[in-house]
């Protein structure tokens, strides 16, 4: 109601006194404001993208991915997890190495892409068989239609040699094949694995703690004896008394060693009873002892278990990290019970282990 008279009174005013629309638009400087906002957006995007990239790379590390089987034109097969993809310019000798017909097709493909080709990095594991953990597979190398996801492909995380990829073909107890069908093998594996790993943990405990305790006791006494020898001489009465006591203690220690060694040997025998036969990429079979397997899963049959597996991997990652912080200061290879390292370290390193370790279970190098 009050607006109408106001409009009437303003009507006779010359219109040029009112700020014009164009002046308002120019004065707001919208384009430059947007440029400033855009610059800020770029800054935020830069840091956001970087943090996202780091987080993504870290978080996906433990996520279980399917296992693929790629048959190549050369007649081989590659089984493993695809970890990376990229484009590259294949050298001509690389194409020449392909079988005749395939080489021609590959050249055509590469030519059509201006000399570029894509390839995938496949984590193939099975290091003790192939001497490599990863293999590049170019797209033109793959046989058309030769890519499958083997339903029963197992991924084994092991104490040594890294991962193992294969299809279960047998479960062995005392060297006897008790199951052939993958489903049965997998069922038996799940039945026995936890028990075998418990035995393994018991063995590690015996080696790491019990033997170490005995050893430490003997070493302490030996040093005390030596101290007396330095103080009073090797012929003094005090030393002779201490020596007699030490001999008794050492004999007792050796007896304890013997008992522990026997227990360890027994556990080792129990662990060695169970193993699993797997067929690897080239069709041959390989047998893996259950005690060596930390974790196994049928990668292409996982549904909800994926999440559980992911969580389990993170848990063991944290456990290992914390455990290592506790035992910080001693290189891993020199520590007691270095089962996982013993197989991969060189013999010189192993002899160093033997010299540094005071525990009895470390095998003396040949």
């Amino acid at each position, binding site marked *: 109601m009050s607006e109408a008279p106001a409009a009437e009174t303003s009507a006779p005013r010359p219109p040029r006194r009112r700020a014009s*629309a*164009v002046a308002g638009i120019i004065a707001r*400087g919208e384009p430059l404001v*947007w440029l400033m906002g855009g*610059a800020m957006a770029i*800054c*935020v995007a830069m840091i*956001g993208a970087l943090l996202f990239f780091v987080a993504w790379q870290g978080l996906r590390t433990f996520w279980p991915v399917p296992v693929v089987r790629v048959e190549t034109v050369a007649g081989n097969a590659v089984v493993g997890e695809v970890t990376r993809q990229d484009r590259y310019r294949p050298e001509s000798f690389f194409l020449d190495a392909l079988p005749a017909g395939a080489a021609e097709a590959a050249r055509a493909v590469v030519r059509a892409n*201006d000399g570029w080709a894509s390839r995938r990095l496949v984590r193939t594991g099975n290091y003790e068989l192939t001497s490599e953990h990863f293999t590049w597979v170019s797209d033109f190398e793959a046989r058309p239609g030769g890519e499958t996801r083997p339903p029963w492909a197992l991924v084994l995380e092991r104490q040594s040699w890294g991962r193992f990829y294969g299809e279960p073909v047998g479960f062995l107890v005392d060297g006897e094949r008790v199951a052939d069908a993958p489903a049965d093998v997998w069922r038996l594996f799940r039945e026995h694995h936890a028990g075998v790993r418990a035995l393994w943990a018991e063995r590690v405990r015996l080696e790491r703690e019990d033997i170490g305790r005995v050893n430490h006791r003997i070493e302490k006494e030996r040093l005390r004896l030596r101290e007396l020898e330095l103080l009073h001489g090797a012929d003094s009465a005090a030393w002779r008394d201490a020596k007699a006591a030490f001999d008794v203690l050492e004999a007792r220690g050796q007896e304890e060693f013997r008992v522990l060694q026997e227990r360890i040997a027994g556990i080792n025998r129990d662990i060695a009873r169970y193993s699993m036969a797997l067929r690897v990429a080239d069709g041959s079979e390989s047998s893996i002892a259950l005690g060596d397997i930390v974790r196994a899963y049928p990668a292409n049959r996982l549904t909800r278990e994926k999440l559980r597996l992911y969580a389990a991997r993170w848990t063991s990652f944290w456990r290992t990290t914390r455990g290592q912080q506790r035992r910080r200061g001693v290189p891993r290879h020199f520590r007691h019970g270095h089962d996982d390292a013993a197989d991969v370290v060189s013999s010189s390193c192993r002899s160093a282990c033997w010299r540094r370790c005071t525990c009895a279970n470390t095998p003396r190098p040949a």
Partner: protein
Amino acid sequence: MVEAIPENAYTGEYPLARFLYVYMNYQARLAARPAAPRVHPLHLQQAGAAGRGEGRLLSPSPPTSPASTLKKVGILHTAMDEYRVLGFTFLSDGALRLYRLDTGEALAEQRPLGVRVPTASSFAIRDGDVAFGFEDGSVQYGKLGFTARFLDSAALPAGLADMERGDIRTLGEGVVERTPDGQFRQQILSLVLEEPVVIEAGMAIRHVDVSMKAAGNVVAALSDSGALHVNEIISRRNLMTGKVTVRAIGGRQQLDPALVGGVKWLGLSGLGDNVFLVLRDGTVQRYDTRDVRNLSLSEAVDLVPEAGAELTVANFLIGKTSLVVGDTLGRVHVWSRIKPDGADTADGETLVLMHAFEGAGSPVRALAASARTRMLAAGYADGRVDVFHVTSGRRLGSLQMEDPVDAAVRAVALGPKDDGLLAVSGGRLGLWDLNIPHPEVTFAALFRPVWYEGYTSPEHVWQSSSGTDDFESKYGVYPLVFGTIKATAYAMLFGVPLALLAAIYTSEMMSPRLKAQVKPTIEMMASLPSVVLGFLAALVVAPFVEGIVPEVLACLVAIPFVILLGAYLWQLLPVHVSVRLQRYRLLFMLASLPLGVWLGFALGPHVEATLFAGDLKAWLTGRVGAATGGWLLALLPLCALAAAVFSSSVVNPIVRTRTRTWSRAAVARLDLAKFLLLCLATLTMAYALSGLLAVLGDLRGGVLSTYVQRNALVVGFAMGFAIIPIIYTISEDALSAVPEHLRAGSLGAGATPWQTTFRIIVPTAMSGLFSALMVGLGRAVGETMIVLMAAGNTPVLEWNIFNGFRTLSANIAVELPEAVRDSTHYRILFLAALTLFAMTFVVNTIAELIRQRFRKRAYQL
């Protein structure tokens, strides 16, 4: 505390000061007093009392060969051992005389070649390789050198047990010294000769030289018949009998037999690919011997073209590529083989005069090259001996041989460690201590172009080490300074606009609540360690960008375009809508970013196809496509700037008067049309201009050139992470610190936030903004890990954005762990640090002056 005085610097107790001292005082033209070669004659006496009595100048014993009277016996070679206790002269009659250098006592005369008299000989600068030619046309080579061995102190030979530390005694044909550690070190001279090789049966060899290569030794010889022979010597040991058979494979070139007498010196290059024949008339004939079976004359050069000057002596420098010649005027000239474009010689290479040392008039009589550096000693007929450093062009010092009989220097030798100088005159043997720290350093050698061996012209080069001992160190600091500037420039070009604009937006346009979230987010960038940024830049960003270069270039244009387009579209919104949406405006801005990226990626292939001949990397090499694309790339920002200025100063006033009565929507539409037209105009103008400029020149080879994976573009981006947060946060603080009453007053007087920001706030905060820029600059200049990992570390002098560089800081990080302590290299790295400091100091001083001006203006408000 060690004081930084010349004395301390000189004794090495204060390394940096010592370096500074050396560096300041060692300019080529300065007469460097205390640091000049500490030349003092140790023993200036006739060699042996008996020799003096019999009037024999050098030898205490009568010469074995009856033919060689004193005048006729020349000195082929002289040398000293690394401990400066033993020296020898090899005479032209085949005799070898050994001297104790601490007393001058002549030890023995040996005849290592037996009764034979060599007709030709060559002595290598290092490693003791020698070759002798004989009357019968055979050549024999081997090793002549000093060997040290430590005597068992339990079973010492008689008469040595009472030696004090530092004592020197004669033992047989060698010398025993008790070292400061108490050991007995025996020093002897030994000559091991291989089986003789017959080059040309029955023809005396007049000149010979040998180069030891890994594949086999190469021997060049000139025989009496006038034939130049170049042979590869292959020796095989029979596994069954152990007998060594020596075979020579090679070719010959028949020269004019009359020429043979005129040949002064023959030299075979270190790689065995060239033979130099220096004639008495001052010319040199260079033969191409890369194919030993097929020798050919490459060129003939007059080394001493001046009338009245004659060549007196010629020799190689270490590495056997540079030729040193002395003449009767006393000049020492260094000639080296280069491969210039369009050389008219047979093999495309030519000898050029690289370094020249003027003489004092007395003829040069002897030359000796150092076995480890580009140092050179020259002996003159008046008894003077000068020491030069070839690369830096310095005359390091001069000393005088005192000899009443015949002072003319007949032979000189530098100690194997460059710490002694041995000179032989007519009747005396002189030994000087040399103490020449860092002869290769002068101000000019560090900061000016220097002509290095193998380079076609003087250049700035940094190459501190190489695989061989013959290597000429190249300490040009300028490429590193350049790399630092390049890294800083590209980083600032990327980071400064982003950081400043973002800071202004955050401070002036954002609600405090949002600001409290955004500011820490961007500051989080600063929390990333630069080694992580470098790692990501080198291993993630660089390979990624390599595959999408055209797209990246298109994005640089597309993203600002889309953002601006968003602004003009925003203006189209009715007022009541835009006011309501004001708080979400930032979201729209954020959304325009992926749109811009999408547009860039969509345009990328088309840009590559139309401007860069379909293949950007091939185009960058300059082999395909027209120059227009490069110019367009460079001109587009400039044209955009011109269009913006044109728009605000010419178009806007016209629009303002003509559209006074228009509605807001109509004006907004007009504004959008204006923007699009100006974009089109920018593109057209840039294209037309670049077409014009493409006729005149090409940016390729300059700012744009061959693509390298680790390049300035990637470094600029990664360094953005380092400098953006700093510039951003300081600028933001400076803007926020502007008194609120200024802002309130301006807004209250009717100014828009935009007008308030740019007319009031930014000018007031200018000193703070400038400080922010300078802090960012300082961070960019000193940044090490990002450039170390992502810049490729090649010290090249190119502005090419697609190429790497090496900065001062990265260079220090790379080389300091490897540098020998207190060596020239080590100290130059400290100099690099000092240069870095000087650069930042100068920049910061200028910045502070400017900042204070801004501040004064701000206070006047």
